[in-house]
C-alpha cells in the first residue's frame, strides 16, 4: 500500500507492506536510525517518537497508521549546530552512557517540558516510567531534564526581562 508520512517536516511517500511497523519504516525505509528498536512489547521505549505531537512507541504503531500524519524523531531535536536544551542537559549531567535509550528518553523529555515547564523529580520519573535505561539508574536522566527545565526557565526570564 502507498502511504505518505511527514517526518521531521518532510513528506515521504512509499509503498509498504500493511504490516510494516513504524519503527522499521523510519529506520529501514527512511534510514533515520536515531530511533531504536529494543523489545517488541512496548516496554522499553527505545523507539519513542512523536506522532502528531505526542510520544508513541513506534514498535507498536503500524506505518500505515501514520499515513497522513506527522512524525518527529530525535534527528529533529537539534537546530543546526545548536543542541536542544534537553540534549544539552543530557550532555552536561551525564544523562547517557551507551546511548541506546537516549533518543527515546529525550523525545519524552522534550514533550514533558513543552507541557510541564517546571516538573519536579517525581513528575520526571513518572514521565519516563514507560521507558527503560540499563546504564544510568535514571538519576542523571532526571538531573538532565531538570537542567533543561531550569535553563529554559532562565531563558524565558531573560527574554521577558529584555522585552518588558
Amino acid at each position, binding site marked *: 500500500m502507498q502511504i505518505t508520512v511527514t517526518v521531521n517536516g518532510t513528506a515521504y511517500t512509499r509503498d509498504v507492506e500493511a504490516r510494516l511497523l513504524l519503527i522499521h519504516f523510519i529506520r*529501514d525505509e527512511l534510514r533515520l536510525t536515531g530511533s531504536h528498536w529494543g523489545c517488541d*512489547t512496548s516496554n522499553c521505549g527505545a523507539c519513542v517518537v512523536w506522532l502528531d505531537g505526542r510520544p508513541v512507541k513506534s514498535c507498536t504503531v503500524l506505518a500505515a497508521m501514520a499515513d497522513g500524519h506527522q512524525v518527529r524523531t530525535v534527528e529533529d531535536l537539534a537546530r543546526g549546530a545548536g543542541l536542544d536544551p534537553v540534549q544539552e542537559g543530557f550532555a552536561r549531567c*551525564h544523562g547517557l552512557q551507551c*546511548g541506546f535509550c537516549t533518543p527515546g528518553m529525550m523525545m519524552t523529555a522534550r514533550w514533558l517540558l513543552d507541557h510541564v515547564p517546571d516538573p519536579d523529580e517525581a513528575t520526571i520519573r513518572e514521565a519516563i516510567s514507560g521507558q527503560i535505561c*540499563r546504564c544510568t539508574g535514571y538519576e542523571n536522566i532526571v538531573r538532565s531534564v531538570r537542567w533543561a527545565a531550569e535553563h529554559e526557565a532562565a531563558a524565558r526570564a531573560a527574554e521577558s526581562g529584555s522585552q518588558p
Partner: protein
Amino acid sequence: MTAGLNGAYGSLRRKEDARFLRGKGQFIDDIELPGMLHGAVLRSPLPHARIVYVDTTAAEAHPQVEAVLTGETLAARNLAWMPTLSQDVQAVLATDKVRFQGQEVAFVVARDRYSARDALELIVVDYEPLPPVVDASQAMAAGAPLIRDDLAGQDGNKIYDWEAGDQAATDAVFAAADVVAVQDMVYPRSHPAPLETCGTVADFDPISGRLTVWSTTQAPHAHRTLYALVAGLPEHKIRIISPDIGGGFGNKVPIYPGYLCAVVGSIVTGRPVKWVEDRSENLMSTAFARDYRMHGEIAATRDGKILGLRARVLADHGAFNATAQPTHFPAGFFHIFTGSYDLQAAHCQVTAVYTNKAPGGIAYACSFRITEAVYLIERMVDVLAAKLGRDPADLRMQNLLRPEQFPYTGPTGWEYDSGDYPRALRLALDMASYDELRREQARARERGEYLGIGLSFFTEGVGAGPKKHMDILGLGMADGADLRVHPTGKATLGISVQTQGQGHETTFAQIVAHELGLDPDDVDVVHGDTDRTPFGMGTYGSRSTPVSGAAAVVAARKVRERARIVAAAMLEAAPADLEWTGRAWQVRGDPAQARGIAEIAMAAHSALELPAGIEGHLDAAAVYDPPNLTYPFGAYICLVKVDPGTGEVQVLRFIAVDDCGVQINPMIVEGQIHGGLADGVGMALMQVLAYDEDGNCLGGSFMDYLLPTAVECPSWELGSTVTPSPHHPIGAKGVGEAATVGSPAAVVNAVIDAISPFGVRHADMPLTPANVWSAIQGQAAGPGQATR
C-alpha cells in the same frame, strides 16, 4: 574542555555524546551494506527433544529466500558445533537433539527481515520429546535424563566439582567455635538484558578471502582469534568491528550461534548478511547470570568475632558449559568469598550441572561471580547478627579487615592490594545518619510501619588478570596499547578494550593527556576494530582501566621518556638534567628552558640530531600484564519500607560509598555506580529468569522479565573514599561492576530487617510482593523461599 588542576583528570563531559545526542550513533542494526541480506534463526519450542528430521523445502522455495542453513549443512563444513569459553562445545545449529527451549535449529537468509521471519514458519521440524531436566538438584538425581549424550564418557549431568580453601583448617575452626549460623539461599537466574540485543553483520569477500564481521562484542580481538580457530580462516584475513554497543554487562562476551550462522550465510551467498536477534531470543538463549543455590555456614565467637566460613554451591550452567571466565577458575572468582572480613579459615565447594536451560552463568557485571560470593557472606553476616542479637553495622565494623593488614592474603589465597574498610563504612553510616535511622525505624514500628535498614560491605577482585594465573582458552589476559604522537603534538591511542557505554573515548584520552601534559581534546581513542588496534582480551570483569588503562599509561610514559631525550637534544642539555613539570620537560630549576610535547613531537620528526641509537618520532606501544588483581570495595546502606498487607517493597534511600582507587573521571565513576545500583534493586526485587517444570522459559519478554524503571529507583546518595592501588601505575582499581556486586545484599538485608518482626530470617530473591507476602505468612513461594 579544559584540563583539571592536577592534569587531565576530572569530570569532563564525554566526547562520545555528540553523536548519541543527535541520533548519529552507529549500532549494529544501523549498519547497511550494499546487497545486504537478512538472517533469522528458527528456535526449538521444546527444552529437550530428539530431532527426527528438519524439512526446509518450503522455506527454500520462498521467493525472497536466498539460503537455509541447518545443522546438517553446517556439519558438512565441520561447523555444527563450536567451542565454548569453558572447554565445552555448543551446538551452532542442532543436529541430534535440542537441549533448551530457544535453541538454534535452522537459519534463513532472505532479502528482507520480514521475509526471513516468514520463511521460518515454513520449516518443518519433527521433534521426539524427551523428559526435561529443569532443576539443578534434579539433574544430579539417579536416573535423571542424560542431557549431554554427545560427549564421550559423560554418564551424568555433572560438569565439575571444584573446591578452594582449607577444608581441615575450616573444620577445626568450626569445631571450636561458640556459635555457628547456617543458611540456605538462592541467587536466582537473571539476565543482563542490554537494551540493544545481540547481532552481527558478516561480509565475506571471496576474492580476497577477507571476512569482515561487525558484531556486538565486548571482546573483538578474542572473537577474531576464536573465529580463526572455529572457522579455520586465517586470522590476518579476519577483521572484527565492534560498532557502538547498546549496553553489554557481560551479555556480549561470547560468540553466539547466530553470529556464526551469519558468517556462513555470507560465505554461502557471497553477500553481506545481517542478523539481529529479537528480545525474546536475547532473553531465552544468550548468556544469563547467576543461578547459584548456596548453603552457607559461618562460625564465630560468642562476642561476635567471625572465625570461619563454609559454602556449598550447586551451580546451574544450562545445556552447554559456556561460562566465560579465566580457564583455571571454573566457578569464576567465587572463592574470593570471605569478603571484607578478617577470619581464620574458609572452604568452598562448587558442583556445576547441566540442565535443559539456556547456557551461560557468568555475566551481568558480576566480576566473575564475586556477586554471588558477596551476596552469600553479606547475608551470612546478617544471619549471624540476628543470632547473636547484634547490630549488623556494629558486627561488620568489629570484623572488617584493618588498614594495617594490607596487602592481605585471604584464606583462599588471594592478595588484596589495598583498603581502608572502616573509613568507608563510617562514611556510609554518617551519610545515612544510621543511629537516627534506627530510632526512626523503632518509631515507625510503633505506628505499624515496617522500615528496614540493610547493609552490605563488599570487596571485589577485578582486572583479570596476571598471565601467570589467568588465561582464556590459552590466551593470556594482557592487553596492548598503541600510542602515536603526530608531528603537531596531537595523539591517537589504539586500545583493545571495548566500551559499551563506559566512556572510554573520554577517559582513555584523559589518561594519555594527563601523562603527556596534553589537553584531552588532543587525544583520539581508537577502539573496536581489530585492524586498527593492538591485541587484548576486551572489556568485562571491570578490567578496562586496571589492565588496558595501565597499558595506556605505560605507553604514554614510554613516549614521555623518549620525549625527554629529544627535549635534551633541543635544549642542549643532558637528559638527566631535565625534570617533568606535568606539562613540559625543563632544565631543572629553569622554567625558561622548557619544551612541551607538541614542540618535542615536531622536533622528533625533524632533522634534529638525536643521540646515537635513539630513533626519531615519539610513537610507543605497550602490553600490560597485571601483577595482581585490583580490589575495589564499598559500603552500602539501603532503607526500605514494606507493606505487610501486600508485600510491596519501596526503596526509600540508598547510600553507596565506593572506593575504586584513583578516579580518572568522577562523573563517569558516579554514572557507573548509579547504573549498578539500579541493577541491584532490580535483582533483589523483580528480575528473575524463571522456568516452569516443563522447561518453558517464563522470562522471555520485558512483560515477564521485569526491569526497574525510574519510579522503582530512589535518588542515589553517593560517597567515595580513595585508596590507591599500590601496583597499578596510576592507582586506579576499576568501577564498572562495583554496585552490581555490592547492592543486592543491601536491599535483601533491608527487606529481611523490615519483616523480621514477623519471624522471618531469610527470603530469597526476587523479593516480589508475592514472595514477601508469602514469607510474612510463613510460606515459601515461587523461586524465592523463606526461612523462619
